[in-house]
């Protein structure tokens, strides 16, 4: 993993160098890197890059991997077409609140 051009986030085409630059500029968490670079915001929602970025953070800050804060896992689990969701809506169920 020494190659700076290794892609860490495939969906957003982000290299290890980009992620390291973010960490060196002061990012402490996956969440911060996500918001600066879009890492983990693509179709896979971080399934590939989340742990790779966590590893980089752990090695930079010399902390165990499990101490790296995980970002919120947001639904849907898999991408779902809007049309399917739209057809599932019914007025009776409300939909305004839980």
């Amino acid at each position, binding site marked *: 993993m020494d190659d700076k051009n290794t892609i860490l986030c495939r969906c957003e085409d982000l290299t290890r160098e980009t992620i390291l630059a973010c960490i060196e500029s002061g990012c*402490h*968490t996956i*969440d*911060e890197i996500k*918001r*600066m670079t*879009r890492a983990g*915001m*693509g*179709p896979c*929602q971080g399934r590939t890059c989340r742990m790779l970025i966590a590893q980089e953070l752990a090695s930079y800050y010399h902390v165990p991997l499990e101490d790296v804060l995980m970002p*919120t896992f*947001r*639904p*849907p689990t898999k*991408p*779902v*077409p*809007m*049309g399917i*969701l*739209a*057809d*599932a*809506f019914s007025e009776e*169920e*409300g*939909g*305004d*609140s*839980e």
Partner: protein
Amino acid sequence: MKKGYDVIIIGGGIVGCATAFELAKRGITDVLLVEKGYLTSGATGRCGAGIRQQWGSELNARIAMESTHLFENLEEYTGYNHSCGLHQGGYLLVAYTEKEWAQFQENLEVQHRLGIDSRAVDLKEAREIVPCLNTEGMFGATFCAKDGHADPFHCTQAYAQGARRMGVEFLTYTEVTGLQVKSGHIAAVETTNGTFEAKTVINCANVRAPELAKMVGEDIPVTSERHQALVTEPVAPLMDCMVMSFHRSYYVQQTPHGSFVMGIGPKEEPSFNFHSSWQFLEKNCAVICEALPVLRKLNVVRQWAGQYDLSPDRNPIIDEAKEAAGFYSVCGFSGHGFMVAPRIAILMANHLAGQDDTMDIRMFSKERYQTGKLLLEPAVV
């Protein structure tokens, strides 16, 4: 870390960071910004990121217009070496009722008095602006080409990095746990990382602002309301502008990245609920797909929730605490804080630096809820 600061700002959203920047620009650089999470971890990072000048009250139209001018050059203004993602593709505000359509005509007059380049468009022209728009049930629309949206993360970073360069210090992952008042004046801020003396404290904590104000005996009439949004996979450009309806309470835009960001207004009880719901997912898609049927094919990749800091008249409250002089609350933006933050930060910084401002900060005082001088706005979601 130092023992004390001239000014401590609580809250690392765009309001707090822009205020830090504007203070530093005026020579007030002995400033500490305290943030519970990371910068933009609250409302700023969850917002729809729209920038709109098509307001119905002169005050809001003016604040939004002047803020837009700042967004237009934010990178240069703050010395930021990344794009802030401003895209001025316009806002198409659509009217679904005759009453709404009549209100839009009045709003246009207000906007035109300020020189905002907005106009009424008929349904044919609306379809020219957004070819995939289903205009069924619409009366007409208004359009302002200079409205748009920007990247809330990078806009906030731009302000924060500019402020940092001028000497402002930032303390993230640090929660404010108490406030000390001495002889009627704010004296210190207690945090999870130590206590810091302060001559002035600015409370920019959005929905958490009331509980902080309460620590110095101040009641701020702001409640929190959950709003949700979602984003789709990126696709080739389909539309350039934001489409928004007050009546059906939706907004939808395609970001420069290609994804669509959208949301609908809820009818919910006040809460601090930051969880997203499947009910929103279905209803949002039903409402948006009716207006833009072509989006039916797009995959939703992520949904999230945030909070509006609602004030009684849906406009910001800027007030100094009665029993703790030097403690200011700047909150109650009611869902449009991002787009007005640049101008509000200038207003606040001018006030603290003793500089003149063409706007009277006193009209934002919460006293207006007693005197009845409300800041009413007809064009709010």
